[in-house]
């Protein structure tokens, strides 16, 4: 084996080792540009192995020569693409257009010239001038990345210049082996220099990212923490924002591992205990609890974390964030205020169900007793009691309608008739309160009414009037016709409605009675509205009258 072969094999081994190093790095870090460079080097290597070594007789055939030329072009273009990727820049599209143009010219030259030197001229010039450009890029852009940038840059320039001489020296027998040796050394320098640049850049990027994350953690509004669970429980890291949120500095937490436990509101300690007991399953739901701060104020916080496991699967730490959610809690409280009406409606639904059950029992016994021989004389009373229980049931349904709009079932009927039918019951109620009821029912047109609702309206207004006369008095229910409107009026002889109550009259849950629900009058307003009627009030120290103005509707 002569010197020429030895030098060629040495150059080959150097290039193979570079390819291995690049592929190893790509497998390790999956950086795209490393993969691109590795591919570029392997194409170059294949050119040496298959073509330059003489295994394939490429110089004699058109396609053999073309493949050889294209291997130079493609490997060069790939390297350029890797450079752009390495610099985080998009590749200039003129590289593609230029390469395509040169490829066409190469085919044209292959057809035009017979000399190999001329045929190799274009691809070699392309490769060499691109190599010089790459060298300049490395020297200019990566000079701050240490010696690697300069080594790579100058090695690229020298290798390119050496390649430029190839068409003229390839036929000089004594120069070719030295060409392989210098080429191999320069390629080795390029590979080593590129690796140096890569490592320095990776290190710089890591430091930059670490700084960014540190700044993020230190300037975060939320508290970021890492809490070690094993081998001993302690705060590993807590961001400085903890001082602003809790009043204690990060150092206070490092010095006293139990400090966080001291801050937790006594009522919420069980939440934390459960959280710790059920680790790691408990981390799926954010933990919300109250902290008592250094200034003794209470803060709502929510913490979310991720578990950190050792390779053997043991849970060793929790890393997460703690967020001040006091404002959110206030908003939730506000929202709950807004929803109070709906809430009360829902509660009423539940309570109504509970009330209906015992009433059903009472109704059943009344029915049984009504059939007994000894109670036959009181049959009317039983009938009335059962009817009243049925009506109570329907009233409960109406109460529920406060939380949800309900449509009336309107039928043409006589308002006077409804009043007269209800009169015995109203009278019985009034008698027990030493109140007498007078009816003053005039001839009025029939109205479109929901009978049940009007009975409820009457009952509510009459009971209000009775309660307005604790010492007794007279209550008048009258009907009349005025300007084609039917007026129902309920008057009492009480002391009148105080002016401070007048402003809020009809507002749900506003009541002056100890046992009142504050729903009676709002229901009356609602019933009137459903009947397209309006309520008018007249009150003084001599008594109060509620007028309900009905507009007769066509059936």
């Amino acid at each position, binding site marked *: 084996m002569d010197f020429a072969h030895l030098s060629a094999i040495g150059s080959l081994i150097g290039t193979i080792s570079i390819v291995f190093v690049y592929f190893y790095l790509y497998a390790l870090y999956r950086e795209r540009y490393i993969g691109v460079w590795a591919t570029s080097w392997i194409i170059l290597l294949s050119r040496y192995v298959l073509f330059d070594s003489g295994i394939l007789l490429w110089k004699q055939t058109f396609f053999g020569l073309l493949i050889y030329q294209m291997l130079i072009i493609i490997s060069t273009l790939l390297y350029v693409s890797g450079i752009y990727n390495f610099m985080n820049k998009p590749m200039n599209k003129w590289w593609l257009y230029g390469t395509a143009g040169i490829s066409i010219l190469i085919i044209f030259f292959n057809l035009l010239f017979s000399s190999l030197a001329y045929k190799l001229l274009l691809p070699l010039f392309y490769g060499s001038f691109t190599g010089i450009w790459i060298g300049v890029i490395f020297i200019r852009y990566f000079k701050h990345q240490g010696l690697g940038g300069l080594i790579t840059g100058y090695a690229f320039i020298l290798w390119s210049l050496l390649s430029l001489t190839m068409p003229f020296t390839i036929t000089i027998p004594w120069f070719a082996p030295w060409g392989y040796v210098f080429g191999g050394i320069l390629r080795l320098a390029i590979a080593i220099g590129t690796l140096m640049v890569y490592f320095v850049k990776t290190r710089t990027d890591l430091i930059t990212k670490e700084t960014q994350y540190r700044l993020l953690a230190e300037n975060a509004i939320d508290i970021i923490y890492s809490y070690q669970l094993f081998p001993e429980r302690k705060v590993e890291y807590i961001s400085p924002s903890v001082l602003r949120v809790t009043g204690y500095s990060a150092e206070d937490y490092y010095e006293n591992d139990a400090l966080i436990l001291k801050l937790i509101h006594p009522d919420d300690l069980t939440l934390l205990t459960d959280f710790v007991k059920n680790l790691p399953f408990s981390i799926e739901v954010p933990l919300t609890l109250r902290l008592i701060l250094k200034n003794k104020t209470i803060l709502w916080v929510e913490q979310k974390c991720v578990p950190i496991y050792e390779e053997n699967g043991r849970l060793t730490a929790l890393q997460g964030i703690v967020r001040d959610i006091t404002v959110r809690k206030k*908003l939730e409280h506000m929202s709950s205020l807004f929803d109070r009406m709906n809430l009360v409606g829902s509660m009423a639904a539940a309570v109504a169900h509970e009330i209906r059950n015992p009433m059903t029992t009472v109704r059943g016994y009344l029915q049984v007793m009504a059939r007994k021989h000894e109670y036959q004389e009181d049959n009317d009373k039983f009938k009335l009691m059962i009817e009243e229980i049925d009506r109570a049931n329907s009233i409960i349904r109406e109460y529920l309608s406060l939380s949800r709009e309900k449509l009336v079932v309107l039928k043409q009927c006589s308002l006077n008739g409804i009043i007269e039918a209800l009169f015995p019951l109203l009278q019985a109620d009034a008698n027990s309160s030493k109140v007498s009821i007078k009816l003053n029912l005039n001839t009025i047109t029939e109205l479109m009414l929901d009978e049940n609702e009007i009975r409820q309206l009457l009952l509510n207004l009459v009971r209000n009037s009775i309660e307005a006369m604790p010492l007794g008095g007279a209550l008048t229910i009258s009907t009349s016709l005025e300007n084609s409107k039917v007026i129902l009026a309920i008057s009492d002889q009480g002391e009148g409605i105080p002016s401070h109550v007048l402003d809020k009259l009809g507002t749900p849950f506003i009541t002056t009675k100890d046992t009142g629900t504050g729903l009676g009058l709002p229901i009356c307003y609602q019933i009137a509205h459903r009947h397209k009627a309006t309520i008018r009030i007249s009150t003084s120290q001599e008594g109060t009258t509620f007028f309900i103005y009905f507009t007769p509707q066509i059936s």
Partner: protein
Amino acid sequence: MTTTILKSMTTTPETSESTIKLGIAVTPEEKRQIYHFRYQTYIEEMSKNITGADHVNELLHDELDEWALLLYVKKNEEVIATARVNIGALTDFPAKLVDILSLNLFQRCYIQNDNPKFSYCAKLMVAPPHRSSPALYLLIAKCYELSVDHQVEFGYTACNFHLLRLYEQMGFHRYKENFYDSGYGLLSPIVLAVNDIQHLRTVHSPLFRAARKRKEVNTQVVEAFHEKITKDSPIVNSQIVTEEELWFIVCNFLQHPPTEVITILHGLSETEAKKFIHSCGSIVQCNTGDIITNQGEISYSYDILLTGKLKSLTFHHPIKEYTISGQHFGANGLTEHNKHTEDIKAVDAVEILVLSGMAFPRFFHSHPDIAHKIVRTLSNLR
């Protein structure tokens, strides 16, 4: 007139809620769905007593529906929002509507066209769970698009006071006195100058997204509109007036610092009160005899008397009047949805400050501390 337009179809706008679909009703079934949705919203949700409502079939429609474009937004095949647009010449609209909207007034803005087309949008409503969804924007944008397609210069609608801010943000202008529509209450007629792209930009209207793409827009009519209608108008547009200007106007009406005379502002600093009024308030003029609140209807605003005198029709004796500047009247519809218990009428020309319950949720997300103070004050007032 509308048959040529009724070829329309359904389009799925590009939205994150990909199941939301905007369409124009063509079939009787689609129209019936819309009429039923109106019924659910106006009668069942808003407790309105509307004459002509079909309670048996639970439908709400009128004669304008016969030649209108009925827009709908559906989500998963369920109607969640609707609107109605009528596009036509002056003679196509009922005389009563022409009078209420003063359409003749706008004829004067046209120099070349003596038979211009107008559009009238009504019955625009969105189901409560979707009031923060893109449904409203889709409908308004479609109305705008239809107006542009038909070379309409002015689009009209009318709204209750609590919605004035919303429409003014869309780009509408108030331009004349309110009118009373039985069942719907006191309404303010409003108009959108379709080609006034500069105004849409100024008020940050969502319609500007579509308007800015238009090329070669003729603004002759818009200029005439501003010259003849808005120029000397005393109406305060909530989207154009600055925080300081609005505060100055309110102070002038009240003759005292608002934080002293308006109960709801107690506990707020001047800066906080300014921000609140500017974010939720509209100043509205009402004429003698206007019924401002109706017993039994849900309140969507918190109303404050600035000047003039109001009277409650509910109290025969003692007579209840509202005469003090800064005095609140009606039910609280800002933080709760209460029903009005009084019919309140303007005894003479009044100016009122309407704090919209529609604007308040957004305000309490952007300024929770101020909103919290307001809610607390209102809770204490109960």
